[in-house]
């Protein structure tokens, strides 16, 4: 069986989000004064509405109060959101994906009882993850097998009989930091090879946030530096280290994940739709420009790029949801998420540039959204692991070796 049909639930999700974006996101996101401004404040009202229709908690299981959206459904939703505004999409992606990881996978019942009710009931409750390794030697760049322990900036020491942890240090470029009420943070502990992961509520004394103005060069959404100064964290806020590979699980919320690719797809689709619409209105050379071969073929190339990018993202998401499809050979045993990462970034970037060209001079003006689509896709192409280093990872996985 080869079935590319979405479920009724997935279609419904898509349509609800598409309507929401048309009514509540695009009109604000594409206002010309917002486009022209160097600052792009987060659309907080739209974010709250998104929470009210369940997008903040969509990935959390039904028994824990969410909508149990699988990876593919989340990708569909994130594409729709990003077609209106990639920042909202990035914020909701992190909160909902982390919500699923924490409340469905990682927290023990006592931790869940402590944090879940407030997470479900408060539309402003967002989650953040300070788990990316810091410094040039590790997460960013080509030497990704560097020592993780040495690079961690936050460190902790155990204190007293009741096992309070005292955390000191800072994490840079933390997505959602200015919004988050709860952080999951990887922390180095002297004498231990592996970091520990702990839950640190925003209101813990000693936690401070500095929003980062250059964050937009790295990722969408809002970000900042989180500083921990003699921050006392109770021992029961530790994530049980005996669980599955925590670092691998958290990779799903790192830059460049399949969910980031879905956001990129939304940006590409917005550019595509704008170009097709304009090409049917604008008349030059005595006819609508879509009727000129030069523009017609360019629009076709944009459509091809966006559609193939979607196929790659959906296949990678489906493979994540259905390991059995890889196990029985229905899907190739390849790192489909990394393959998709290498294809989607450049394809969408090219598509946004082509779309801008259709607009002539208006394609480079800030009061039109085309320049925004190009810049937004450029950010995603370079966030986290770039295409070159992702190819190195693919090469390792193809032959099962690890670069020295």
């Amino acid at each position, binding site marked *: 069986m080869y079935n590319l049909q979405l479920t009724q639930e997935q279609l419904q999700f898509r349509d609800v989000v598409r309507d929401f974006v048309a009514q509540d996101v695009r009109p604000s996101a594409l206002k010309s004064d917002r486009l022209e401004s160097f600052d792009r404040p987060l659309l907080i009202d739209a974010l709250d509405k998104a929470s009210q229709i369940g997008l903040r908690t969509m990935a959390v299981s039904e028994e824990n109060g969410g909508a149990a959206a699988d990876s593919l459904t989340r990708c569909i939703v994130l594409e729709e959101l990003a077609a209106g505004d990639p920042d909202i999409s990035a914020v909701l992606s992190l909160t909902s994906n982390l919500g699923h990881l924490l409340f469905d996978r990682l927290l023990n019942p006592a931790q869940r009882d402590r944090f879940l009710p407030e997470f479900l009931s408060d539309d402003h409750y967002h989650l953040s993850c300070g788990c990316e390794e810091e410094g040039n030697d590790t997460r*960013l760049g*080509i030497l990704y097998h560097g020592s993780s322990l040495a690079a961690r900036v936050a460190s902790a020491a155990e204190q007293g009989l009741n096992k309070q942890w005292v955390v000191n240090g800072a994490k840079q470029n933390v997505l959602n930091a200015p919004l988050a009420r709860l952080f999951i943070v990887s922390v180095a502990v002297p004498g231990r090879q592996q970091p520990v992961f702990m839950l640190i509520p925003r209101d813990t004394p000693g936690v401070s946030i500095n929003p980062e103005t250059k964050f937009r060069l790295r990722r969408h959404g809002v970000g900042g530096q989180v500083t921990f100064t003699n921050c006392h964290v109770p021992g029961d806020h530790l994530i049980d280290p005996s669980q599955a590979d925590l670092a691998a699980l958290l990779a799903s919320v790192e830059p460049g994940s399949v969910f980031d690719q879905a956001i990129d797809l939304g940006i590409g689709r917005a550019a595509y739709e704008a170009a097709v619409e304009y090409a049917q209105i604008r008349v030059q*050379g005595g006819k609508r420009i879509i009727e000129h071969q030069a523009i017609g073929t360019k629009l076709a190339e944009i459509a091809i790029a966006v559609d193939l990018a979607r196929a790659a993202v959906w296949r990678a998401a489906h493979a994540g949801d259905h390991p059995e499809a890889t196990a029985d050979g229905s899907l190739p045993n390849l790192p489909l998420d990394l393959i998709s990462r290498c294809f989607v970034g450049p394809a969408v970037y090219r598509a946004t540039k082509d779309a801008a060209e259709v607009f002539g001079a208006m394609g*480079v003006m*800030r009061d039109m959204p085309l320049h925004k689509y190009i810049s937004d896709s450029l950010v995603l192409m370079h966030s986290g692991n770039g295409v070159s280093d992702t190819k190195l990872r693919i090469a390792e996985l193809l032959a099962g070796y690890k670069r020295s």
Partner: protein
Amino acid sequence: MDFRLTEEQLAWQMKARKFALEEIRPVSLERDRVADPQQTFDWELFKKGSRLGFRTTAVPKEWGGHGLDFVTQALIMAELAKGDSAISKAFSQCWKWSHLIAAVCTDEQKTRFLRPFLADDTFVLGKGITEPSGGSDNRLPPDNDPSAGVKLRGVRDGDFWILNGEKAFIANGNIAKLFFLDVRTNPHAPLREGVTLFLVPRDTPGFRPGKVFNKSGWRFYQNAEMIFENARVPHANVIGEVNGAYKKSSGDTSGGDIFGDLELAANALGLCEAACEQGIGVARTAKQAGKPLKEQQIVQLKIGRMYMLTEALRSFVLRVACEHDQKIHTANAGLVMNFSTEIIQEVSELNMEICGLAGSMDSAAEKLVRDSFIWSHLAGDAVQRMKVARRIIR
């Protein structure tokens, strides 16, 4: 073949390099970050450059300019663009129209317009072609369609012409003191037979600059709307014949704007050099786990490609400049302009990749990429490519 530059060419190249390094580069990123598009221009910097000759480079010597050859012009544009592409363009835009004045104006018009231009360090030139309703229609006019292209209307009234309409995206539209303008003087004829070229001073009654466009990149170089409401322009400011703009306006009688094409390619060369310099600097200095980035094969491959593309562009640019100096006019000028689009964008993107591999997403690298976007519209869109191809095919 002799690839050596003359002493004079080398001297101008060094002068431009010094100015770019000492004056342009230090303010480039700061100017890029000025939020108000009307405030991006730096007059003090422009005046300094003017005093060094970078505004009047192309005015013939007999009229008091420097009368530099095309090779020297290309060298200067590339050096200035290595400091900041948009600032280089702000200077060379004046050369573009100096060429036009020298090629098509009468001696009386040259006296009236070139003399004040030469005397004033803040005298900037512009040309208005594009309008809200038509860009491509003017670049590649459809045959026998009088409704296509220029709509800014000019009606004769004795010794004057009355102009009504508007221009859009005009370079230096808000700061220039003198403009060439394409004006529709016969609405019933196709573009090639119904448009007249005028010289219009900024202080012409009935003219006012409109909105300054807020571009993604190239922010120093300003583009504005121009609005004409019963603007009165003397008949003495008509260039060439009435309805003859497309016969007389080009300085290149063999067809094609020979300077404008070279200009964008030479400017791209400078931006590519800036990207190469930054890329190799990062590759040499950035380390990961104690190992210099330059030792990575994928970095070596990127550096090699950046330099290969940049040197290919340099060869093509200087060949076209040399051909212009020898009055050999071919489709090469258009081809090098088209070619520079791919090169400037790929080289600046490769630099950004190297910065990404170093783990430092640098705003200078991002600016180079953003500055390169405009080539898609100016130098490498389908219309600019078809224009050149049609010249080859015909």
